[in-house]
């Protein structure tokens, strides 16, 4: 074996620091450098730092981000989040595995080019099923797109190597307006970067008086890439699902360049374009939509933007623009004019409750920390949004980093903290990047750092990147993780307010909670409290995904009904099947059946029906979704994410999963449903943290509302036609003999018979759905 050059390790330790709290950062740097964590490198870290071998071995095996054996050159992360799961994420994984010729026990192809890995959730739920290759996200995958995606990725790699950076915004005299496009992860996944580049190129080439600007997400992910053209003092135009080809036409249409020579050149090149492409020119107006377009109006009308204020308008990391839009006014007022007690009272009057899931009154948490006498206090922002099916915090961090910083700073001032951390999950690189950039900008401008705005209040904020562990969303586990340990929750009390980070009083709030604070301080508690219900005030951001026509990020007043969210905002079920249930709150939440869609979305009501607000993922399910499979899916997730400390969670969730797997395989026993309920009660009653305590919810709520489906599985039937072991694929008389199914069957289960009816060999069939997805005659039947 080749000896590794470990000078990088030495440099990394020198750069990052040698305290145990740097463990994760050091490991992340080593992994980025070597592609995995070589043992020699870890041993070198131990010899250079205070980190012990026991600690580094424990930490590096706790977080799923870390690899201990070499990986292929590119990582393919296949999302199996809830929305991707219901849209066939597992089949996508299987297809990648087959396409790359990766054996079952391995994760890397023989050429060591690609390593495939399942990830809990990429947070791009409305692109489901989605995958990420290195930093590029691909969405709306189908089985037959898999080879195309691989080819596209490799071509892009080649192209990138050649392409030189063409610089930032065009500087031009006489700016006539802005061309806005969202570049958050999910929009990038549908090609926004290419459109952005094409727009910049077009502006540069045409000399148009326009600024191409990346903006925070409008939330209308179903229309992405969405380009908005805003003419100064004039109308604005939006183009949906724009392709790079349209860029030039958009620029020319709205920003007609003045110089004739250029105009001629433009005409010529456009002419040439027309000649060169074999397709006839498609007028861009075809994609144009007006703000009054009914779809968009509905999507926006019921919403109320507080955490997502100025959505789709401001550049996420442009500090000037944030300041122009009332940014840091609330902080300025707070630190200069208000006492901590006055701020906490205001937050209390607003009725703000924790947006991370449990809904604990925010002002009580703040007072608890304020009332502790301690020379050192911390403020922590929980950005470890790990729920599969949720992407609110990602979008907030990517689109409104300053607002979150401002909220956190007001909180820090209110509780007397002078240091703070943003704990952000590793799966959100763009959020980490934007938050870091925003913190740096704030430091430069005096919104953070020493003596903020002359008030005497000082605050240092830094990013602490997670490494792939859902349980770190639990506050005590999160603090352990920031301290550089395994993310194991501990028994409370003592609560973090008493003994938190490094045993000091610590305030931990969720991203969205902080994001609501500046608005409340600017607009007053009453304005916030007027929204929502008597116990759940204000608005809540939800990630709407699954079988929904218009998925995306929405912010609605508390108390809105599920029906309004799904039908009015989301446009109902995508694909014409019937609405069956909505999964609320991810692995801690439950399924609310269609018959209860009139209920109000607030903390108490959701809890009463057996679900939970959670962090706000709404995954819509239709009649093709099997509720036993959904329960199995969530248990597989929590079981995999359990820290493994407590008996009931470590083994109990595994045994529940065993039973659910048996049911889905048609091998259930009569006593299984009772045993599930027994285990669920035990786990719920004995868990010391939120993960274990809520893990049984998806099972209990599905048993409660869909017991008949469980019973059907006992009879070896899957009414939704979802559970592979309980269904068969066959070809109907509609078959036109096109042989496509035979060509695409990865298991050789279909013999090629041109112009004849095809047949599927049930013994060979692996129920992957390839045939169904390619059949042009809808002649594949599942029963």
């Amino acid at each position: 074996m080749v000896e590794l050059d470990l000078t990088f390790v030495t440099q990394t330790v020198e750069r990052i620091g040698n305290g145990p709290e740097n463990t994760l950062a050091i490991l992340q740097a080593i992994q980025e450098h070597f592609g995995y964590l070589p043992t020699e490198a870890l041993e070198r870290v131990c010899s250079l730092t205070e980190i012990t071998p026991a600690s580094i071995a424990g930490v590096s095996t706790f977080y799923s981000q870390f690899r201990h054996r070499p990986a292929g050159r590119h990582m393919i992360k296949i999302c199996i989040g809830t929305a991707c799961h219901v849209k066939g994420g597992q089949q996508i994984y299987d297809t990648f595995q087959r396409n790359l010729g990766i054996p079952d026990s391995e994760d890397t192809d023989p050429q060591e080019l690609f390593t495939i890995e399942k990830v809990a959730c990429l947070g791009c739920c409305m692109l489901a099923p989605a995958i990420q290759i290195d930093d590029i996200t691909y969405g709306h995958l189908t089985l037959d797109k898999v080879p195309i995606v691989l080819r596209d990725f490799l071509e892009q790699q080649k192209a990138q190597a050649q392409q030189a950076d063409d610089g930032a915004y065009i500087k031009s005299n006489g700016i006539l307006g802005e061309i806005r496009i969202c570049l958050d992860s999910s929009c990038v996944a549908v090609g926004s970067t290419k459109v952005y580049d094409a727009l910049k190129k077009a502006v540069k080439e045409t000399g148009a008086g326009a600024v191409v600007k990346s903006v925070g997400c409008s939330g209308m992910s179903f229309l992405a890439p969405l380009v908005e053209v805003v003419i100064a003092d004039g109308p604005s135009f939006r183009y949906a699902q724009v392709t790079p080809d349209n860029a030039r036409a958009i620029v020319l249409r709205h920003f007609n360049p003045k110089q004739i020579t250029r105009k001629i050149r433009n005409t010529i090149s456009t002419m040439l374009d027309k000649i060169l492409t074999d397709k006839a020119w498609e007028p861009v107006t075809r994609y144009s939509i007006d703000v009054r377009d009914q779809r968009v109006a509905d999507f926006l009308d019921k919403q109320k933007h507080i955490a997502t204020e100025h959505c789709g308008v401001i550049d996420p990391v442009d500090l000037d623009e944030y300041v122009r839009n009332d940014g840091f006014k609330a902080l300025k007022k707070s630190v200069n004019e208000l006492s901590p007690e006055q701020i906490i009272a205001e937050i209390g009057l607003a009725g703000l409750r924790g947006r991370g899931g449990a809904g604990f009154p925010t002002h009580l948490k703040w007072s608890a920390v304020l009332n502790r006498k301690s020379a050192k206090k911390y403020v922590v922002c929980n950005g470890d949004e790990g729920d599969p099916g949720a992407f609110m915090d990602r979008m907030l961090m990517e689109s409104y980093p300053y607002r979150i910083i401002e909220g956190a700073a007001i909180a820090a001032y209110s509780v007397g903290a002078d240091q703070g951390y943003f704990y952000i999950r590793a799966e959100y690189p763009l959020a980490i990047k934007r938050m870091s950039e925003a913190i740096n900008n704030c430091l430069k401008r005096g919104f953070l750092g020493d003596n903020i705005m002359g008030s005497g209040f000082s605050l240092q904020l830094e990013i602490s990147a997670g490494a792939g562990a859902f349980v770190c969303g639990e506050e005590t586990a999160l603090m352990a993780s920031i301290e550089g340990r395994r993310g194991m929750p501990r028994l409370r009390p003592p609560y973090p307010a008493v003994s938190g980070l490094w045993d000091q009083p610590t305030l931990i709030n969720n991203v969205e909670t902080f994001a609501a604070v500046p608005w409340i301080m600017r607009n007053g508690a009453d304005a916030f409290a007027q929204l929502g219900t008597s116990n759940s005030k204000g608005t809540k951001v939800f990630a709407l995904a699954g079988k929904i026509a218009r998925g995306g990020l929405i912010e609605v007043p508390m108390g809105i009904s599920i029906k309004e969210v799904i039908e009015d905002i989301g446009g109902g079920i995508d694909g014409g099947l019937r609405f069956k249930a909505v999964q609320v709150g991810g692995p801690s939440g439950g399924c609310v059946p269609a018959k209860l869609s009139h209920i109000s979305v607030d903390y108490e009501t959701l809890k009463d029906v057996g679900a939970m607000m959670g962090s706000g993922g709404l995954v819509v399910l239709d009649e093709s979704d099997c509720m036993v499979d959904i329960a199995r899916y969530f248990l597989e997730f929590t079981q995999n994410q359990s820290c493994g400390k407590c008996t009931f969670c470590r083994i109990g969730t595994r045994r529940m999963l065993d039973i659910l797997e048996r049911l889905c395989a048609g091998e259930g026993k009569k006593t299984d449903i009772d045993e599930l309920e027994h285990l669920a009660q035990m786990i719920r009653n004995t868990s010391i943290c939120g993960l274990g305590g809520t893990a049984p919810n998806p099972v209990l709520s599905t048993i409660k509302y869909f017991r008949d489906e469980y019973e059907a599985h006992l009879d070896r039937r899957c009414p939704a036609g979802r559970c592979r072991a309980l269904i068969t694929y066959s070809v109907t008389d509609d078959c036109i003999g096109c042989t496509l199914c035979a060509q695409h069957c990865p298991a050789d289960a279909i013999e090629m018979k041109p112009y004849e009816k095809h047949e599927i060999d049930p013994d060979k069939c692996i129920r992957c759905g390839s045939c169904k997805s390619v059949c042009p005659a809808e002649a594949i039947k599942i029963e």
Partner: protein
Amino acid sequence: MSKLTIDNHQVEVDDGATILDAAEKLGIEIPTMCFLRGYKASTSCMLCVVKINGSDKLLPACGTIAQDGMTVESESDQIRQARKAALELLLSDHAGDCIGPCQVACSAHMNIPLMIRQIAAGKLRDAIVTVKKDIALPAVLGRICPKPCEQVCRRATFDKAVSICLLKRYVADVDLQSDNPYLPACKQSQNKRVAIIGAGPTGLAAAYYLQIDGYSCKIFDDHENPGGMLRYGVLQEKLPIDILDAEINLIEKLGMIFKGQTQIGAALSMKDLQKDFDAVLVAIGQPKPGDAESMGLKTTSNGIEINRKTYETNLPGVFAAGAAVRKSKLAVRAVADGKEAAAAIGQFLSGQPVTGSPYVFNNRIGKLVDGEIERFMADAGKSERLTPSPEGSGFTDDQANDEAARCMHCDCRKPISCKLRQYARQYGAKPNRYKGPRRLFVQHLQHPGLIYESGKCISCGLCIQIASQAGESLGLTFVGRGFDVRVTVPFDHSIAEGLKLAANQCVEACPTGALSFRKKT
């Protein structure tokens, strides 16, 4: 100071004290496995859960800080259910047999693995004590037993079963041929007399154990000599009479009196026996029609009707065992029955409740997973099963030694001190309630003083804390997460490198057989 009540008893404890501390102060015992005084409560096993202020939630007493005004409940149905469930879950992920499969299969439940280790260590006197604790006629059975133990011997999964029966015969033969064959010390006479009807294997075995317990036995048999089917129903070449006589002779040396050529009937009736003796054991073998009825005993299709646990018949003070009560004609079953009936009779005579033999808790690995048998083989002799020649002869000393080395030590190394087993028994946990994937059986044998079997670990982390506090440079750590979390030495170093200072402390603290001392026997 905080004042709280536990199970309606008031107690006052210092600030920061836990509920477990408070309970201890009151003398209330709360079961714990993962907790050890002097170390941080890891609140992992969840055995110590209690109910606080009537909440549905149960909290671990070891880590929950006692607070002023708390009302704690430490015992209730809900709590017992939760503890039982915790134990059942831990057992479902526990790759370990409390008792070796051979011992379970043996009708007499003789501690076969221990006997084998004693042979391997050359401690043959210890070995015969082990054997005779459960089998009164080992030289006899060593020749005629159908060997249910060998049918389940795990070694057979790898090559062939250990030759258990011949090893037992070897131990017994060596003992019989010695100058002073093993005679157990008998307890002081209890001045109680037991009449045993039938001098077959059941009656003889019962007499052996009753004599040891200080009860005088008189065996009545219609034949001239004792032995029953052993003497009159087995071929001489399989079981030479002198072997039978030698073992019966040892029982007579303990004080048993044999009265041959005596039928129970007109001359000497059951009523007479009941009058003259303090207890009667009917061990007449398969009863001829009318035999049992004439004694006033009820019958079933299997023979004399008894309480299956206590061997009591319908007549007070009259017990029945062996082929008289069951269809099985196995000699080892008969001997086992004699032992168990003797235990019940002992309870009866000493005025204790008659409950029969105590329930023995046993966790079983069950079916092995691919690759596990090789792990079992790690510390076992690799030679093939030995067959002595000529056929029918016993082992020589060397052969016995080699054969004994083949045993894989399936039985637990901490069968008594294992807390998981103790509490599983106490809470009536069912070891097979949950089926599914589990830890693999693994033995780490590099350490000179201990053996680490990670399949038996309950992930309490005590050893990790102990190693860290002891200043081990490598020590131990948790690796992985969730169901797959394991305790290992960092960077795949050996357990010997991980535990250079704290090995003894770790073994003593380990609540299961995961860490055990390396012993010769």
